[in-house]
Structures are given as structure tokens and as C-alpha cells.
């Protein structure tokens, strides 16, 4: 049996790589993918704790995280497409105006 700490360590590694992606990359879609990675690593931690403590609450929390992730992706990608349409770019360094 694999100790829960290993799963949590894997989750921490994935989350840190996601943090690097969000902070370093300039392309908005890559930033989105990194956010998905971070949400997934949180899900991994939730499921690991659910197994560790023998309850289902962690898995239910994963359900809600997935729901939020789906909503976030739908709205976020619509935003990216709208920004691309008006600015012809999805470079987050170029998107610094609320209007114009």
C-alpha cells in the first residue's frame, strides 16, 4: 500500500508546476491549462485524503471542484475568444486595458 504522503507529494509537485505556468507564460490559453493543472492537483489531494480518512466527503468536494472548473473554462475561453476578436492577440502582457 502506498502512503498518502506520496500522493500528496505528487499533488504538490503538480500544483507547483501549475504555479510556474501561470506566473511565467504569456499565452492566455497556456495559463488556462495551468489553472486546470492546479485544480487537478487539488482534486488529487482531496481524493487522497478521502481514502486516508475513509469518508466520501473528499470525493464529493472533487465533484464541486470539477463543476467550478467546467464553468470557469467555459467563461474563460469565451473571454479569450472575445479578447482575441478585439485585439487579435491573447498575450496577457498586451491585454492591459479595460476598454479600447
Amino acid at each position, binding site marked *: 500500500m502506498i502512503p498518502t504522503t506520496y500522493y500528496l507529494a505528487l499533488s504538490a509537485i503538480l500544483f507547483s508546476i501549475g504555479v510556474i505556468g501561470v506566473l511565467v507564460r504569456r499565452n492566455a490559453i*497556456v495559463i488556462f491549462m495551468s489553472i486546470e493543472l492546479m485544480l487537478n492537483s487539488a482534486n488529487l489531494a482531496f481524493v487522497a485524503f478521502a481514502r486516508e480518512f475513509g469518508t466520501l466527503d473528499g470525493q464529493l468536494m472533487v465533484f464541486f471542484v470539477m463543476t467550478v472548473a467546467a464553468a470557469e473554462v467555459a467563461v474563460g475561453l469565451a473571454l479569450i475568444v472575445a479578447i482575441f476578436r478585439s485585439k487579435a492577440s491573447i498575450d496577457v502582457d498586451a491585454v492591459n486595458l479595460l476598454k479600447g
Partner: protein
Amino acid sequence: MEAVSAAQIIFIVVALLTVATTFLVVTVRNLIHAALWLVATLFGIAVIFVLLDAGFMATVQIVLYIGAIAILIVFAVMLTRRVMQDVGPQSNENWWLGTIVAAVFFAAISTLLWSIRWPALPGAVVGDTVLALGRSLVDPNQYVIPFEVASVMLIIALIGSITLALPGKQSE
């Protein structure tokens, strides 16, 4: 030390592959390739869910993340094509700062992980997981209100994204 079991071998292999594909998602230049590596990462996490006795969550992970979210991202990549493909730097000027922040975060959280010993509890969820999950989602004493709020939020997100993506409303 007992012998290495099959589950441990699978965990090590899948964990290494997942970390590698995650790294590729963040670093690779081509956006379509990044999206495909993201699919590989999500699949690896689904395998780890199976190792954690959460087979239903693994199914949901594949259907929802790979089937819906990853495909949406691929569509978004195709809709915003020929932008920042091979020209220009892919990272901003403060990349070293971001890397340091992530490294500090990782150091902090792994110190926390190795210092805490969780109490050894009788593991493994007993009984029918799917039945218990479904019951607790409609049980007024448990999760029925978050469930309804989540459904309302999904409707709002749906309407909002359609409104945002409608073409030809403003001057372009």
C-alpha cells in the same frame, strides 16, 4: 521492507509520467501539443484515482476533463490560431521571479507534508461508492444545497459564455 507490489510500480511509473507531461504542458511551444500533453496529464491523474479506490471519480475525470474541458481548450486554440506560435518569447520578463515563487511554495508545502504524521485510520471506503455519493448529493442534511447552487452556477456560466462569445455585437 517487503517486496515492491504491482500497485507501487504502477504508482511510480504513472507519477513520473504525469510529472513529465505536466512539465511539457507548461513549457512546450506549440499550443496544440500543450493541449495534448494536458490530456495525457489528466489521464495519468485518472489512473491515480483508480489506485486510490476512487474508480467513479476516475470515470468522471475522463468524461468531464478529457471529454469536455480538454476538447474545449483545443477548440479555443484553433479559434485563436496563428498567434504567438513560433515568434517572440513565450515567457514574460519576470520568469525567474515566478520560478522562485513556485519553488518557495513547493519547499514550504513539502516541509509541511513531511513533518505531519496523519493518524493511522482504518482505510478504504466501504460499500457502494456510487450509491453513497448519489445519496449524499440529494440528502437535505448533507450536500443538496451545494448541489443546487452548482447547477444554478452552471446555467449562469453557460448563458454568460454564450453572451460573451456572440459575434458582431460591438464594433470589432
